């Protein structure tokens, strides 16, 4: 069975309507996708059917998950946050600067933690062997970056604008341009892998991965803001994107006592 975009659109609309109804009936706002989201076909066999077992972290400060791995200067090199300097030549594409803060649910900066990114090149091709999209590879662009958040929680990357790319979820499936992010908090419970999008991408409504975030306001939080003050004269356009880590951490426990 080959699904068309119209089939996927109908499924996305049904999921969205079901969510709106849940909220209207008093269910809480959902900040994250449900793991069971049919329009993204790979999720069908890969989500648990049993509900997770809840652990109240306020009852036990000894939990391993209330701490987080440490990363330091040894784990990154000086140019890891500049994806345009990792090869002998210049990558092709519009240069961009992406910066923002890593925050916890209390709005406090998450300091000294690892922020990793990966992305397609400006033609929409990943430097991954299994990638079959026939857009050109760029010998001067790998598309991997790392940095450590500073004392105010800020991270900053220099890269090129990634291109949109096709995938095989359904016929004519295209991913809006995005940068993948992997971040750590001060507790392992705050671990987050996500994707940052660019403003006004016409592909947003068609993409089951973005639409898996059924809450409209939550989805907006995945889209960076163009920030002229981050643009570097004669060099790059700036985007601002703050990341708020969910999941309890030890500072919550201190407050709860």
């Amino acid at each position, binding site marked *: 069975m080959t699904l068309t975009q119209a089939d996927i659109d109908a499924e996305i609309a049904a999921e969205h309507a079901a969510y709106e109804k849940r909220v209207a009936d008093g269910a809480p706002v959902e*900040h*994250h*996708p449900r*793991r069971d*989201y049919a329009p*993204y076909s*790979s*999720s069908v*066999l*890969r*989500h*648990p059917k*049993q509900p*997770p077992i*809840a*652990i*109240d*972290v306020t*009852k036990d400060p*000894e*939990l*391993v*998950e209330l*701490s987080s*791995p*440490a990363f330091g*200067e*040894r*784990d990154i*090199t000086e140019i890891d946050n500049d994806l345009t300097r*990792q090869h002998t030549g210049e990558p092709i594409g519009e240069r961009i600067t992406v910066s*923002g803060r890593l*925050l916890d649910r*209390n*709005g*406090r900066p998450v300091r000294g933690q690892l922020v*990793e990114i*990966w992305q397609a090149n400006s033609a929409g091709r*990943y430097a*991954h062997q*299994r990638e079959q999209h026939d857009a050109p590879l760029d010998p001067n662009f790998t598309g*991997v970056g790392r940095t450590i958040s500073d004392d105010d929680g800020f991270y900053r990357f220099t890269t090129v604008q990634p291109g949109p790319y096709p995938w095989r979820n359904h016929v004519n499936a295209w991913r809006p341009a995005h940068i*993948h992010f*992997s971040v750590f908090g001060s507790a*392992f419970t705050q671990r987050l*892998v*996500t994707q940052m999008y660019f403003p006004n991408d016409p592909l947003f409504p068609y993409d089951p*991965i973005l639409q*898996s975030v059924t809450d409209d306001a939550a*989805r907006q*939080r*995945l889209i*960076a*803001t163009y920030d002229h003050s981050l643009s570097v004269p004669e060099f790059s356009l700036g985007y601002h994107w*703050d*990341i*708020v*880590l*969910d999941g*309890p951490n030890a500072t919550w426990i201190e407050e709860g006592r």
Partner: protein
Amino acid sequence: MTKIDTSRPENVLPTPSHTVGPFYGYALPFRGGEDIAPLGHPDTITVHGYVLDGEGKPLPDALVELWGPDQDGNLPTADGSMRRDPASGDFLGRNGVEFTGFGRIQTDADGHWYARTLRPGARGRNAPYVSVCVFARGLLVHLFTRIYLPGDDAALAADPLLAQVEEPRRDTLIAAEEGNGTYRFDIRLQGEGETVFLEFQ
């Protein structure tokens, strides 16, 4: 908006999770990600298994992260899991001396993963365990679980989490001993024998 005004707590809302996708393999795994224990440490154990989908098929594109205490139950504070060479930018691997407690392993083409780490020590009232976070294409939000080791029945019986889980499912959290300090721990995302996953509140 994505510039968060932290002076208004009602605006500080979580960034949604997304799948790791299929193409993280050249970005996230690092050399020595599976070799967490210091070289030659007498308390080293090997943990290995498959990540399986709802049809029992192994996932060749899952990413398993491990985070655990040392043999005395202390939480590591050392960085250096993914040490880099400042000249070439390559991964140097761990130094073999310090224990960072963190591992990251991509399943191989057979859906199999393994890690060598320290046998975790107990913390508080909990039986010893290693925390696990699973990512995969198709998984919109990562999954947390734990690896407990068999042997100390009294400690396992007293563990607050294991006590919350009904009997047949409880065993999905306890690795199977295979001798020589090797333990098998399969992660079943869905269906029969589905692994118990955790939610922290």
